C-alpha cells in the first residue's frame, strides 16, 4: 500500500514537472495580479504596505485555484482514474495523495514567490518570515479543499469558474487567519502566533476531512 502511494505521488510530481505549464501559469498569474494591484491603487507605499498581506493572500488563493481543477481532470480524461480505483489504495487516499501533489507543485512554489512579490508591495522585510509561515500553514488547506471542488466538477463544462464559485467562500477562514498572522507581525500589538495556530488547525482539519468529501465526489462522478 505504501509502495502504491509512493508510486502515485512520484508519478504526479513527475507529471507536474514534465508538463510544467500548470506551475508556470500559476506563478505567472500570481505575479501579474500583484503587478496590477498597485497600478489600480496608485503607488502610495504606505497604503500598499498596509494592504500587502491581504493582496498577497487573495491573489494566492486565486492562483492556487487556477490549476486546481486539473487535480483529477487529466486522470479522468485519459481513463487513469478508473484504473486507480482498482488499486490497493482507498479512493480517499488517492484523493489525498493527489491533493498533496498539488500542494507540493503549486502551494510551495507560490509560497516561495510570495516574499519576492511582497517587496513590490512594500511589505516590511521583517514580516516576510511570517508571510512564508502563514502561507506554508495555509496552502495545504487551499489544495485539499480545492480537491473537493475538482471532484465535484469532474468532467463538467466551465468547471473552472464553477469551482471558483463553490470553493472561494470556503477559503474565508484560511484567508482571515492567514492575513491576520502577517498583519499582526507588521503592526502588532497582538501576537501573530495565535492566528497562525488557528490557521494550522484549519489546515489540519481540511487535510483530514477534504479527502473524504473529494472521494465521495469522485464516486458520484465516476460512472
Amino acid at each position, binding site marked *: 500500500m505504501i509502495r502504491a502511494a509512493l508510486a502515485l505521488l512520484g508519478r504526479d510530481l513527475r507529471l507536474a514537472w514534465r508538463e510544467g505549464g500548470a506551475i508556470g501559469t500559476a506563478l505567472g498569474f500570481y505575479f501579474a495580479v500583484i503587478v496590477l494591484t498597485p497600478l489600480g491603487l496608485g503607488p502610495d507605499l504606505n497604503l500598499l504596505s498596509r494592504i500587502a498581506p491581504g493582496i498577497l493572500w487573495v491573489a494566492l488563493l486565486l492562483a492556487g485555484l487556477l490549476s486546481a481543477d486539473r487535480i483529477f481532470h487529466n486522470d479522468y480524461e485519459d481513463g487513469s482514474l478508473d484504473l486507480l480505483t482498482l488499486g490497493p489504495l482507498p479512493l480517499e487516499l488517492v484523493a489525498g495523495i493527489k491533493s498533496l501533489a498539488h500542494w507540493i507543485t503549486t502551494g510551495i512554489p507560490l509560497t516561495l514567490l510570495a516574499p519576492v512579490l511582497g517587496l513590490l508591495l512594500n511589505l516590511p522585510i521583517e514580516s516576510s518570515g511570517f508571510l512564508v509561515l502563514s502561507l506554508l500553514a495555509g496552502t495545504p488547506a487551499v489544495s485539499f479543499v480545492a480537491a473537493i471542488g475538482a471532484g465535484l466538477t469532474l468532467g463538467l463544462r466551465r468547471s473552472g469558474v464553477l469551482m471558483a464559485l463553490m470553493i472561494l*467562500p470556503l477559503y474565508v477562514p484560511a484567508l482571515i487567519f492567514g492575513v491576520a498572522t502577517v498583519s499582526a507581525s507588521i503592526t502588532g500589538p497582538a501576537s501573530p502566533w495565535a492566528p497562525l495556530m488557528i490557521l494550522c488547525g484549519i489546515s489540519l482539519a481540511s487535510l483530514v476531512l477534504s479527502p473524504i468529501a473529494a472521494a465521495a465526489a469522485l464516486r458520484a462522478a465516476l460512472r
Partner: protein
Amino acid sequence: MISLANPTRFLELVRIVLPWLTGLTVILFAVGLYLSFFVAPPDYQQGETVKIMFIHVPSAWLAMMAYTVIAIAALGSLIWRHPLADVAGKTAAPIGATFTFLALITGSLWGKPMWGTYWVWDARLTSMLVLFLLYLGLIALWEAIDEPSRAGKAAAILALVGFVNVPIIKFSVDWWNTLHQPASVFRMGGSTIDPSLLAPLFVMAGAFTCLFLLLHFLAMRAEILRRRVGALQQIEAQRAAA
C-alpha cells in the same frame, strides 16, 4: 419505471396540507404586519426604521434554516438514498438564497439610517454574504450537472461541506470583525430589544417559516412532476426507438 411510491405519498400529503398551510400563512402575515406597522412603537433612537427588523430578522433566520434543511436533505440522500431528499435539497436552495438576499437587502436598507452608508462590513452582514455565496455555488452546481442522480449526490456533498464550514466561517468573520472594528458597531442582541417589539417579531418569524414551508412544498411538487414528465418522455423515446 422509477419507483414513485414515496413521491406519490408526498404529493398526496401536499394536497391535503396545502390549503391549511396557505390559510395559516395568510393569517400570520396579516396579524404580523398589523402588529408591526400599527401596534409596535417606533424606537426612541431609530424611529420607524426599526420596523425593517420585522422583515430582516425572520429572513436571516430562514436563510440559516433553509441551509439546515438542505444539509439534512443531503444526509438523507447520501445515507438513505431517499428519492425525496434530492428533491427537497434542490428546491430549498433557491428559496434559501432568496431569503438570504432579502436579509442582505433589508440589512443594507436598515444600515443606511443607522450607519449612514448602505454597506458596512459588520460581522453578521458579512457572514450572511458568505452564506449567500455558498447558496450560489450550490445552485450553480445543480445547474451544471445534467444527470439528476449525480447532481443530487454532488450537491449533497457540497451542502455538507458547506454546513461544516458555516460555523468556522462565522467564527472567523466574528474574530476578524472584532480585530478591525472594536465594539462600536450597533449590536442587535436579545437584551436590547424591547418586549413590545418582541411579539410582532415572533409572529413575523412564524409567518415567514410558514411561507418557507409553503414555497418549499410547492417547489418540491413542481420538481417531482417535472421529473415524472422527464421519465415519461424517456419511456416514450425508448418505445419509439424499439
